[in-house]
């Protein structure tokens, strides 16, 4: 367990208690030089608030977009980012790592 992921769950709980619609993104696997370990988390609200991180800052934008979709549909998603992906540069994960992220709505 990492303390920072702990803080993110606390923040997510606070946001939920305040009436926000919240999604939580969790790093489930990493390969290569990915900077964040499995278990790292990011919380996103429908109103656009973001806490925590799932990478060194390179894929947070794409994950936040996916989080909005999960908040709207209620459907969880598994996202894969990596250098083998054509979108590597687009999402900014040019550091040579791969990372899988699970995104789900807090309900």
């Amino acid at each position, binding site marked *: *367990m*990492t303390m920072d992921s702990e803080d993110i769950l606390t923040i997510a709980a606070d946001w*939920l208690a305040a009436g926000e619609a919240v999604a939580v993104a969790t790093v489930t696997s990493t390969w290569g030089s990915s900077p964040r370990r*499995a278990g790292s988390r990011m919380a996103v609200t429908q109103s656009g608030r973001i806490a925590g991180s799932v990478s060194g800052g390179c894929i947070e934008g794409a994950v936040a977009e996916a989080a909005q979709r999960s908040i709207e549909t209620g459907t969880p998603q598994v996202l894969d980012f990596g250098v083998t992906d054509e979108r590597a540069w687009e999402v900014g994960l040019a550091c040579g790592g791969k990372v899988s992220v699970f995104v*789900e709505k807090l309900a």
Partner: protein
Amino acid sequence: MKAEHLHALQAAATQRIPVAFATRLPDGTAFILPDPAAPQALALEAATMLAADKTGMVTIGAEDWFIESRNPAPRAIIVGAVHIAQSLAPLAATMGFDVVVVDPRRAFASADRFPGVVTRTDWPDEALQALRPDARTAIITLTHDPKLDDPALIAALATDAFYIGSLGSRKTHAARLDRLREAGLTEASLARICAPVGLDIGAVTAPEIAISVIAQMVAARRGKPTRA
């Protein structure tokens, strides 16, 4: 993630209860283990991962599960509510440690000197017995006073603490080792004490010394040499 799971995870962390949080991908079905309602194969896998403090994906039958080990936060027990402790305590808290500052001198261990920090004013050896340090605990003595540091170190060396550091110059530490030898401690035991405390980064000020101690604690926790 269900709100009830979120709240149960928070409660476990607060009560320092180790749990494994298992989520099936991609549908998000989740269990907080141990849970008698969980499938047996999942329960076995989760128990193994939790014991090894591992987090990651496992395949069980045809299913993909993300299992997150959620062991209690590591602890830092700081003996001596001195100037360096005022820098070290908040820094250790930022690094994810549950921090306790121990000093029987009430004027030092006061709330206005340590806002938001858990303090105890019992004697260090009694405090350590009560706190029961485990392999996820670091113990740092900072008082410079043998009456406080020595009993704390003797108590610390009887535990599995992953890090034991003690403030003091080489000369101070040599004298301390002589006293501890007389108290019956073995060389192997005494070798566990990191002293002079901290990685050698030329630290001068209290916050700099605190950084060097934190760096050494991280090195010990991550299995790197604690001497540069």
